[in-house]
């Protein structure tokens, strides 16, 4: 009897071929996608290049050597001007430009090399301050400033050991009772050797030299998180919210399949309701529910986790409407593609979990290799999360949401047109 029950289910599954195939394709597809993202974590660390805006206020030979050495670092992508890695670079970054770029989310970290750095990169003398390098950071990416800070120390040692050694020797000369001519001559000889054997941009190799840390005075300024009460909540609410909305819309969109099965769809289409009106009506319902779901989530975040909802109400409303529309049309599209509930569940699981992983709902996109970050832009999740980040994290004016809103509304129109096209199969026999 038990076997009969099991066999009955198996028979149902084999009759729904698409669901049958998906049942086996699904785990393999998941495995492939997640292995591509997580499975090569060591490789990822090596291949993820953090874009850094560098402002060289010093412009000395030493600072240029320092920048060149930073450029040679595999972990960094040094940009001296906006769009430098593209065809039309702009003016070199000023401190203000770099700060604006970080605040605007164009780049998550910048380094400012102040005047006098090349002259006196380190100082052992009381009362004489070392020039302080400044890292301007967006702490929504907490990794980038740490990596940069470490590499700055490393590069200083490897790229300009002679300058560091000179500073040290000069301090010794001044406070150690003076060097003999013979010692001074030897020192110059050694400094020359250090200069010749310091790391060159082209070699990319690490020169022999004393390992040290913290010799360079580096200050990290968190431009974004200084005033935030709970900086990660907005990211979590947006990331999880979008994923939840997609699942929710796919489930609710399944009502269309139930209407096909129950015969009500057929009946409706014989009334004065056309397929276009029907789909728009469904979209209105799905988007309305989705907007309420997001609102409830953010309200909860505001009440319990200190999310500043009231302060960002306009941006929140715009992003919520755009996100709800995009997620809802996705649910409609799935419902129009799938022929059974079983197929819908399989396709929804596969695509939504994949989009959520790629689009940054499960973990931040800045942790991914660059290619994967770009691929993430095909997902609704990425655009929605970026938009909510702009509202709650960067506190940008409303008009700066246009790329995200345009992308989400574009997706809405495209998916709705696709769903309408596919729904023709129900329209008339």
């Amino acid at each position: 009897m038990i076997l009969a029950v099991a066999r009955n289910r198996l028979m149902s599954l084999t009759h729904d071929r698409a669901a049958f195939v998906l049942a086996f394709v699904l785990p393999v597809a998941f495995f492939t996608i997640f292995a591509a993202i997580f499975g090569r974590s060591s490789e990822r660390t090596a291949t993820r290049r953090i874009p850094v805006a560098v402002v060289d206020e010093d412009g000395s030979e030493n600072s240029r050597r320092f920048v060149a050495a930073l450029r040679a670092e595999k972990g960094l992508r040094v940009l001296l001007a906006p769009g430098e890695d593209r065809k039309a670079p702009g003016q070199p970054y000023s401190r203000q430009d770099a700060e604006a770029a970080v605040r605007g989310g164009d780049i998550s970290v910048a380094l400012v090399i102040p005047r006098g750095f090349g002259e006196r990169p380190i100082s052992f003398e009381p009362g004489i301050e070392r020039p302080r390098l400044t890292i301007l950071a967006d702490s929504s990416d907490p990794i980038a400033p740490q990596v940069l800070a470490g590499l700055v120390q490393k590069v200083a040692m490897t790229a300009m050991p002679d300058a560091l050694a000179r500073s040290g020797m000069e301090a010794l000369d001044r406070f150690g009772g003076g060097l003999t001519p013979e010692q001074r001559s030897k020192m110059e000889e050694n400094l020359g050797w250090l200069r010749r054997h310091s790391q060159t941009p082209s070699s990319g190799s690490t020169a022999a030299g004393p390992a040290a840390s913290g010799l360079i005075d580096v200050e990290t300024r968190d431009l974004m998180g200084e005033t935030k009460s709970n900086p990660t909540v907005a990211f979590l609410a947006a990331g999880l919210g979008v994923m939840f909305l997609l699942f929710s819309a796919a489930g609710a969109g399944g009502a269309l399949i139930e209407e096909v099965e129950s015969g009500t769809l057929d009946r409706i289409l014989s009334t004065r309701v056309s397929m276009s009106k029907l789909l728009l009506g469904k979209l209105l319902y799905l988007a309305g529910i989705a907007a309420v779901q997001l609102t409830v989530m953010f309200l909860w975040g505001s009440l319990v986790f200190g999310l500043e909802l009231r302060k960002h109400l306009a941006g929140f409303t715009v992003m919520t409407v755009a996100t709800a529309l995009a997620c809802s049309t996705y649910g409609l599209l799935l419902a129009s593609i799938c022929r059974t509930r079983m197929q819908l569940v399989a396709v929804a699981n596969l695509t939504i979990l994949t989009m959520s992983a790629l689009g940054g709902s499960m973990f931040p996109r800045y942790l991914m290799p660059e290619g994967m970050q770009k691929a993430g832009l095909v997902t609704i999740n990425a655009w929605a999360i970026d938009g909510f980040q702009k509202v709650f994290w960067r506190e940008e004016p409303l008009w700066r949401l246009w790329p995200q809103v345009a992308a989400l509304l574009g997706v809405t129109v495209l998916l709705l047109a696709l769903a309408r096209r596919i729904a023709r199969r129900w329209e008339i026999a």
Partner: protein
Amino acid sequence: MSDRALPLEVRNLSKSFGGRLALDGVSLTLSPGEILGLLGPNGAGKTTLVRSVAGRVMPDEGSLQILGLDPADDAARAVRGWVPQETALYSLLSPRENLWTFGRYQGLAGEALEAGIAKSLEWIGLADRANEKTERLSGGMKRRLNIAAGTIHSPRVLLLDEPTVGVDPQSRERIYAMIGELQSQGVSLLYTTHYMEEAERLCDRIAIIDHGKIIALGTKEELVRRTLGSRQALTIDAVSPIPPPLKEKLARLGAAVDDLKVQVSVEDAATQIRQLLDLFHEERVSVRDLTLKSATLEQVFLQLTGRELRE
């Protein structure tokens, strides 16, 4: 919409699905206030024809007009009602909510909608259960609600696709009464059914459809006369098994004979009954029962299609 246009006019309608011909040059008309029964075995093309009239199937050839309108026109949708074979309702909604939904979908609003809902609930006898979930209603109640959902907008042409399938005799009677009321209001009905007695009782004219073709169309009397003439069906039940010599004699008279029963179609009942009884007497076989019936629609159907209706 012309006042003189027929409620339904179908001309040479053909439709095939993947090479299988579902409708093959069907032509028929429906007069104002008439109930036209559509009889046919499963797969004969009844549902395809009804769905074509409902605007849910696009014919390959031929024409179809509802009160002179194309079935896809908005005006045609407004004057047409369709009660599909399955109870196509929202089971989690109440009867009132279902009626609201289909009333709105048919363009009713405001007071007209409220009045339509109240009238429909009264008409189908569900006013006291208007707010229960539809899934909790009996099969007969759901069938009645199914009819109300297709008629809430007071259509002038109504398509009823087997509206009494699976309902108990009491509910069936109630549905017959509802159909009678619709007809008295001047609604023209295209009525498909599997039940011969339903067709005989309700329909003014009957179209028999088989293999996608209308093979007979007319009143019951016309169909019987045309198909079977004025012949009557005679059945004789014997007390004891009929011996082979008598079987042979009866067979020569065109009778179907088995061990205890003889069935024969007779033109001149008085003369032929006497002849048959004489044969029984000669062979010393006693007769238990003898019945003479006028030809039925069932026999017409059998004669025309070679099949029972419920095959």
